[in-house]
């Protein structure tokens, strides 16, 4: 399982009311209680009493989309430092208290929003909410913790250089999005990280970490009344703030870009793609179906069938549309031995051209719909997944009845819609191609060379 970004999960693994299991009294359904509190916090609650566990996910609309290029990485750094000390607790105390009861509390940044997550046993609920509120409302950003964290993030970025997939992905995003935040790593860059001071973090936090800029989902062995009481007790000091945010959309420049990176590898890591769509694009569902058939449907996909099953060229080949709030990307990725790089790239382009020029079959269409609509319960199997899902649904404005609407969206997609989507959103000429490989062994053709 590779990097499972929430959008991707949403994309492939969309939810649906349990169409097939209609008559059981225990048919799966999600009873969501939604409320916008006085302080502007959007609260979503799902009761699930199968286990004495509660999960809380808080999405704060303070992803890297709101940060400046100069201080790239500050959104993630702020989130990661929430648990590094508060006005009344040190980092050590926070981890000791959390871990003693076997709970977990963490926070990190994302492209669109930052996420703080709590998992706690029912019996320790009070402590959990105490810690969660303390870290979100009153982080102290101690200097030594800032330095340690910065060192570790930089070290982590350095370590990741060892991973050819990471290197390819980083170069790809940068090429597609340019200076737009989506083109950067959420962690930022070593240079930008060095420019961030404690005051910057304090300002960023006080600017963006407001209840009217956040979504909280609570899932598990808890009632709405219990939630309200806990919020009253621990989050009453979280007050509305005035927000002035104007995130930019990325600029779409249509041109071919090729990046070759030379490394001592046995495999070429290849990414081919370009800008995609944003989450609110009305063609999102036609694109979902189209992508499933092209390269999102695991073994069922055309890319898999061609490149892995028939030609044995790769263990994993996939395509996806990463649809964020303000823009998105499309990519096909695979790893194949150096010597097969040319063939692999050619096959990818062949498949893209094919799906753009010829209608998909009835069988392909119905299989795609079958899976996309039918696999829904899987994505809401656990409280953790539900909690994350709720925040995403709210953030992307999908509606609380999204679970019911989704199958209708998918089932209404026609073959013509898929063809139209392929023509509009796939490009076999103006793409970005990144190849991280032993360049000599790969012997790339001229058209795939920088």
């Amino acid at each position, binding site marked *: 399982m590779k990097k499972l970004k929430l959008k991707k999960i949403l994309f492939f693994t969309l939810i649906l009311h349990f169409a097939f299991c209609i008559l059981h009294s225990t048919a799966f359904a999600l009873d969501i209680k939604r409320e916008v509190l006085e302080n502007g916090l959007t609260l979503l609650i799902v009761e699930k009493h*199968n286990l004495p566990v509660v999960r809380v996910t808080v999405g704060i609309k303070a992803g890297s989309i709101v940060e400046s290029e100069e201080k790239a990485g500050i959104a993630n750094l702020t989130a990661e430092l929430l648990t590094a000390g508060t006005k009344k607790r040190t980092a050590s105390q926070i981890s000791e208290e959390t871990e003693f009861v076997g709970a977990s509390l963490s926070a990190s940044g994302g492209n669109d929003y930052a996420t703080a997550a709590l998992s706690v046993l029912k019996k320790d609920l009070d402590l959990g909410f105490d810690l969660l509120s303390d870290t979100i409302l009153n982080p102290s950003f101690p200097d030594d913790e800032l330095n340690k964290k910065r060192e570790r993030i930089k070290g982590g970025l350095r370590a990741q250089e060892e991973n050819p997939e990471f290197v390819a992905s980083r170069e790809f995003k940068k090429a597609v999005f340019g200076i737009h935040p989506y083109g950067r790593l959420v962690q930022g860059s070593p240079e930008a990280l060095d420019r961030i001071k404690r005051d910057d973090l304090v300002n960023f936090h006080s600017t963006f970490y407001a209840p009217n800029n956040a979504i909280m989902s609570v899932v598990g062995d808890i009632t709405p009344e219990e939630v309200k009481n806990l919020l009253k007790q621990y989050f009453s000091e979280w007050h509305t703030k005035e927000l002035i945010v104007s995130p930019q959309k990325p600029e779409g420049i249509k041109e071919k870009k090729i990046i070759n990176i030379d490394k001592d590898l046995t495999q070429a890591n290849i990414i081919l793609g370009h800008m995609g769509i944003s989450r609110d694009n009305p063609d999102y569902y036609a694109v979902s179906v189209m992508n499933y058939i092209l390269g999102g449907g695991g073994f069922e996909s055309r890319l898999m069938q061609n490149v892995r099953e028939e030609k*044995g*060229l790769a263990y994993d080949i996939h395509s996806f549309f990463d649809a964020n709030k303000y823009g998105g990307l499309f990519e096909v990725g695979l790893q194949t031995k150096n010597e097969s790089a040319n063939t692999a790239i050619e096959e990818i382009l062949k498949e893209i051209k094919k799906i753009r020029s010829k209608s998909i079959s009835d069988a392909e269409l119905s299989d795609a719909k079958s899976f996309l609509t039918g696999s829904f*319960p899987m994505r809401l199997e656990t409280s953790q997944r539900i909690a994350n899902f709720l925040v995403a649904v709210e953030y992307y404005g999908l509606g609380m009845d999204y679970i019911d609407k989704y199958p209708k969206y998918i089932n209404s997609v026609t073959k013509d819609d898929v063809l139209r989507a392929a023509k509009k959103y796939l490009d076999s000429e103006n793409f970005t191609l990144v190849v991280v490989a032993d360049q000599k062994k790969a012997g790339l053709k001229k058209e795939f060379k920088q």
Partner: protein
Amino acid sequence: MKKSFKLIVFPLLLTCLVFTYSAINVFASENTSLHEEMLPNGLKVLALKDPSAPLAVFQIWYHAGSINEQIGKTGLSHLLEHMMFKGTPKYAPKEFSKIISRAGGVDNAGTTRDYVFYYQKLAPDRLHLSIELEADRLRNLIMAPKETLAELNVVMEERRMRYEDDPQSLVYEEVLSTAFKNNPYRWPVIGWMQDLKQITRDDLYEYYRKYYVPNNALIVIAGNIDIDSLMAKIRKEFGAIPRGGDIKGAKIEEPEQIGERRIFVKKEAELPYILCAYKVPNIFNEDSYALEVLAAVLAGGKSARIYKSLIDEKRIALSADASYSSFDKYPFLFYLDATALPGKSINEVEKALYEEVEKIKKQIPSEREVQKAKNQIEASFIMGQDSIFFQAEVLAMFEMLGDWRLKDKYFEGIKKVTLEDVQRVAQKYLIEDKRTVGILIPIKKNADRK
């Protein structure tokens, strides 16, 4: 352990086990019940009904892991796992997964040193598909030579991705093959590249016929299932399969290690890495419980010793961990591993790791620390139960070791661990003479690369 070193899909989940319930209600919710049956042909079946689960799972496990292979033909078990998707007379090569995904399900498989397992996640009323498909491919795999060759290529790409181009995984591979001299645990589950290149279709088919027999298999079904109807289906489909020959495993005894072993891997990489592996017993030895607790005391989280020392205080490691799992069929290993921060020497890191080991040997751990470790193990298990897949897997793991009831014994064992036990097992097993150490030395092959 952070990396996907092997093809074991869920090793870490399984280190956190067992909660005491009454004899009948063995798992999550109030109304769960377990049915146990052995078919006349030796096939064991466990059926777990959990009305609170939104989906169901079918798992079939075979005692057909890499431990059954021979020198010169390593990688057979895992390759066979791949081939199981390649068709029978009844279902063409692409059909298996297609049928499952059309039904809105997902399917996958995994190979470990000891076992191979196949699973599908589906709506409860679709589980009959799994039963039909798995009973079919247990007996009727075609294994066409062309398909086998193509799949061999895929496995080689997988090997390149997971090992050849992943420096830390190479260290892991070296450590294993050095720590064990006689035990087949010494070769990688995916097999040596040289062996993969010379495996024949007949090798594979012979292995399949020998090990994929009902008396060598276990089925676990779980979810909101109708046990009676599914059991009837299983008896019908699987019951017809004749019992296979008795499989006599060679008695594997690893000679005693009487001195430290050290290996080095020089490869293009970013940061130095160290992996220390100590020879330890498995679950059939009473010391295994204390070893689990010891691992958590050392590295259960940010408040545990190794993180605090190496990452927080000394700031010499980017990551540092201790891990142990008692679920191998034969005595296996207790790991310490760490990645150095840029600019820090691996010698310093190694020294610091041993310092923590010596500390706990010299001075008994605190009551709070040990209680924290136990709380973490317990909480993790409770939370894991949210997934019906995890519930099924836990049952299966213990049954494959001899008896699913072992899991109760397991938790009792964890509960009973004393401070003295933790210290005692550190003194007994974490000693230099029983240790194998692997170190990654990063090199830059060509100065003008990149």
